[in-house]
């Protein structure tokens, strides 16, 4: 019985990792389209390892935004990983040096996989296996997408400049199906950003959009 549960965990983790790999290809293409080049795009996936934050960072830089706006956007999107860490701390029970490596894997998918397991041992297995497989697929996918986009040349010819907003939409969609609050916050955020665009430096409209949360 325990073995079947373990096999199921590995199978689910592999499925998540492969679909994330496809998302990573889109990120790799977006990074190169934004002008970051193959090396910086790949280093970002290795070190930041948080999809939405990475997309935001290259999106703002690609549009000509400042380092501050790009980093602030990435950090705002990365804040939820802090909450995941709080929830996982009691479950994973990692101490000392091991916490340094474990922390890198605290993202949407690993947290979701760990929290649905019926007992702590399976949760730790789910976290570790999902982290490992996803890390490999995420970075391999990034490299493939970045090299591919570089080989294709001008990203606009292939509509690659729409890949990032389309990817955001696909990420956002499941959340909009939850409650009307999410829809209001999304529409408010988009409206604030669009209206602010002509008046403030590039990248800042994204940060201003957080105001929509207060009214949501």
């Amino acid at each position: 019985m325990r073995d079947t549960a373990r096999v199921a965990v590995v199978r689910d983790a592999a499925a998540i990792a492969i679909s994330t790999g496809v998302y990573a290809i889109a990120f790799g293409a977006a990074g190169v389209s934004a002008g970051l080049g193959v090396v910086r795009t790949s280093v970002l996936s290795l070190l930041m390892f948080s999809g939405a934050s990475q997309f935001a960072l290259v999106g703002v830089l690609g549009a000509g935004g400042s380092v501050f706006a790009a980093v602030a956007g990435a950090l705002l999107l990365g804040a939820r990983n802090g909450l995941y860490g709080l929830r996982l701390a009691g479950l994973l029970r990692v101490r000392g040096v091991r916490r340094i490596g474990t922390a890198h894997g605290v993202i949407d998918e690993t947290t979701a996989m760990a929290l649905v397991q019926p007992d702590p041992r399976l949760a730790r297995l789910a976290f570790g296996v999902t982290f490992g497989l996803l890390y490999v697929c995420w970075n391999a996918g990034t490299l493939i997408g970045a090299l591919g986009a570089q080989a294709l040349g001008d990203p606009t010819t292939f509509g690659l400049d729409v890949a990032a907003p389309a990817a955001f939409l696909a990420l956002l969609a499941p959340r909009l199906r939850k409650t009307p609050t999410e829809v209001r916050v999304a529409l408010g955020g988009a409206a604030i950003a669009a209206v602010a665009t002509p008046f403030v430096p590039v990248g800042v409209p994204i940060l201003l959009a957080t105001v929509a949360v207060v009214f949501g």
Partner: protein
Amino acid sequence: MTAWIAVLVGSIGCYAWKLGGLAAPTRWVDRPAVRRFVELVPVALLAALIAVQTFGSGRALHVDARAAGLAVAVGAVLLRAPFVVVVIAAAAATALLRLVG
């Protein structure tokens, strides 16, 4: 060079969130209001990114082939198409429109 700074500082910051969460005293900031805010911030930011990257060119707003691509993406999402299909359909529609236009 500035892009490298953004990559490295952003990565360190994002890692700090993760480690901070794991290392913080349990239930330290785990209040419903905080959680709600952190859950909704990505919704506002993602929507803002969609708007800016679809209609923005620097500090100007334009409706061009990208808008058509996004419209196709919306359609694909409404049909519950998988992630890859949404992205490829949007890119293909935009590329096609540029080829024709």
